[in-house]
Every structure is written in C-alpha cells, then in structure tokens.
C-alpha cells in the first residue's frame, strides 16, 4: 500500500468521524437558526428594522455558533492520546494541524454558509446583498476558525476547561465583524462594498499565515 501523507490521512479520518457524530456536528447550524428565530421574537417582526439588523445578526450568530464547536476541537484528541501522535519524531505537526483546521472549517462553517441565504431571507435582508453576504462568510469564516482554534489550543489543559474561550475569541474577531457586516450593509444599501471585502481578505490572509504558528506552539506547550 502506498504511503499517504499524514495530512490526507487525518483529513479523511476527521471527516469520517464527524459524519459518524452528525448530531454534534450540526449543532452550530441549529444554534444559528435559534438566534435567527429568537431575535425577531425579541425585537419585533418589522421588516425595516430586521433588514437593517440582518447583516450584523447573521454574523454575530455565526460567530457565537462557531464557539460551540471549539471546545471539542482538540480536547477529544488530547484525551485519547491521538493529539500527541501529531508530534512524534520528525513530524512538526503542521500537516496534521492543517488537516484539522480544514476539517473543522468544512464541518462547522460550511453548513452555516450553505444555509445562510435561508437565514438572510427570514430576516428580510435585501436579495441584492445576498451574494455579498455569502462572499463575506466564505472569506471571513476561515479567519474565524483560526482565531477560535487558537483560543481552543491555548485553553486546552486549563482548569475549568472551555470557560475562557469567549473572552479570548471576542477581541480578536472585532475587525472581522466590522469588515464583514460593513460590506453586507453597504451592499444592502446598493453601494459598492469592495474596500470592505478587500480588508476582510487581507485580515484572513494575515491570520492564515501567522495563526498556525501560534496554534502549534500553544498545543505543544499544553502537552507539557
């Protein structure tokens, strides 16, 4: 049998595992829709107010939903000993980390993106802003996953486990939220939102290039 790269091997195994635990995997999606239903119940069903708030609400809901999947991102692997296997011998762990980040994004963010048009319609977001909403989610959620993964890696062996996650994630997602919802709001008003999208892309690229280093360092320190 040919040797598969650790990256592909882990990616395949992660996806197989998450299909096997579909209930847990789809939790962020349920959460998104819980928020989408609860907010109109709270602020009233007026379409003007809702369409004004829709970009922010969908993004805040996506952000909070992403927190749900974070606690188990590395902890299961820590508990059964598969996490330390990432770093055996000459392996730097980056291939495995990359596979885990991609599978995490596919499992937790992609369903949210796929179903976001439904949420947008329920919140009366103008239809012409829909492509921009999906675009911001496509560009922005990788950064969201990376920031969340850093928080999950940092708090891996803390006392009181995942309780710290929100406070670590919140400051770092401020630019993400501003650029993404700004783009969608402008699109809803019928204006060009390219500068926002450009900044959002730059933010994601910066995170893609630096975060893996920090996440790997945090994981290794937590294994001590």
């Amino acid at each position, binding site marked *: 049998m040919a*040797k598969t790269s650790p990256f592909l*091997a882990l990616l395949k195994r992660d996806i197989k595992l998450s299909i096997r635990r579909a209930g847990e995997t789809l939790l962020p999606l349920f959460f998104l829709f819980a928020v989408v239903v609860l907010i109109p119940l709270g602020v009233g069903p007026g379409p003007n107010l809702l369409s004004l708030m829709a970009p922010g609400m969908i993004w805040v809901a996506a952000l909070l939903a992403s927190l749900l999947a974070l606690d188990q991102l590395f902890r299961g692997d820590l508990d059964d000993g*598969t996490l*330390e296997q990432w*770093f*055996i011998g000459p392996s730097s762990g980056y291939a495995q980390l990359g596979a885990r980040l991609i599978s995490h994004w596919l499992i937790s963010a992609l369903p949210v993106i796929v179903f976001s048009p439904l949420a947008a319609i329920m919140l009366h977001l103008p239809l012409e802003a829909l492509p921009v909403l999906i675009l911001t989610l496509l560009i922005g959620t990788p950064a969201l996953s990376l920031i969340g993964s850093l928080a999950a890696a940092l708090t891996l062996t803390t006392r009181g486990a995942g309780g710290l996650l929100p406070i670590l994630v919140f400051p770092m997602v401020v630019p993400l939220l501003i650029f993404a919802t700004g783009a969608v709001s402008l699109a809803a008003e019928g204006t060009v939102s390219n500068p926002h999208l450009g900044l959002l892309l730059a933010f994601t690229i910066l995170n893609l290039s630096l975060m893996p280093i920090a996440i790997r360092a945090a994981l290794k320190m937590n294994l001590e």
Partner: protein
Amino acid sequence: MTLLQAERLTFQRGGEDIFEPVSLTLAAGRVIVIRGDNGAGKTTLLRVLAGVLSPSSGCVRLNAEPIFVGHLPAVKADLSGRENLHYERQLGASQTTIAMALIQVGLAGMGARPARTLSAGQKKRLGLARLLVRNAPIWLLDEPYASLDAAGCARVDALIDAHTSQGGAVVLSTHQQLPQLDAAIDYLNVASASAADG
C-alpha cells in the same frame, strides 16, 4: 547501527528538572528498559525521546522512523479496530496486514467492533497493534505491560523479540514487570532530580 541517540537530556516543569540528565544510545536489535519509581520521570523521558516534548537541554537524534505508544492508546473510540489500524497504516505500512496484527495481539475477530466497546486491556492491545502495521524501526513504549494479563504480557514480549530480530529497536518503561526477552537488554535507571536534592 545506531537508531536513536540522546545526549544529556533534561526536561523542566514548573522550573524544576524532572529527572537527572540522561544520555543513551539505542542500536538496532537492542532493547532499553527504563526503570524508576512512580514520579521518577519515566513517562516524561519517553515523551521527550518521542518528540512530543522538546527537551530543556540536550538533544535527541533519530536515524529511523519512531512510533510511540503511550499511556493513552491513541485509538479513536468511534472508529472500529480495523479503521483505527487502517489510519495508522496510511502513515507508512509494514508487511503485516491488519488482520495479522489483530491476531498477533489477541484481538482476532474483534476488528469490526467500535473501539468504544472494547475493555481497557483490549484497547491497550489495539494500541500495541498499531506498532505492527507501521513501518517504524524504533518503538517507544510507555508501560506496555500495564492493564494486561499474564498472557498479554507474554505476547508483548514475543512482539518485542520478533521486532528486534528483524533489526528493530525498543525503548520501554516499566515500574514492576521485567520483560522476559531473548534480545539483549540495557537497563536505564531514571532518578527524579528533586528526590536527589532532598
């Protein structure tokens, strides 16, 4: 041929050395048994050798692929035994097939069961089966005899003998059971650095 060499390894936790500096040389066909009391740092030393922990000082040189089986068997509970070994095999397969490996560790006929349904001892055996399906000459085993019955321990000894006779090498830690091997054994006593102070 030297497969693994370590020079003056130390590891600090909380600002304290865990064990006295360790140097060792592991040649093909040899077995090193790490002995020491509970808390002497056997597990930490093995994790440093495996690369999970970076040594505070000193260095580890590997001339071949290592594989590490720790306290935790590194087995996914939601996957079957066969699926777990299939994943391991993708990282570099040995001649041994998954079915053969399961027979050799005494799990014949249990390969289809989710690992979740196995007992602690059976999970341990599944963890050891990972050694057989991987093409890794250096075995690093942390307490391989723990939670195994007498027959299980004898099986581990047989596996180690077979591995060393094919040019492999083993470093293992144990705090009670001493291996009954044909292969040549070097003993390494690990002393807790703090115990030496006090």
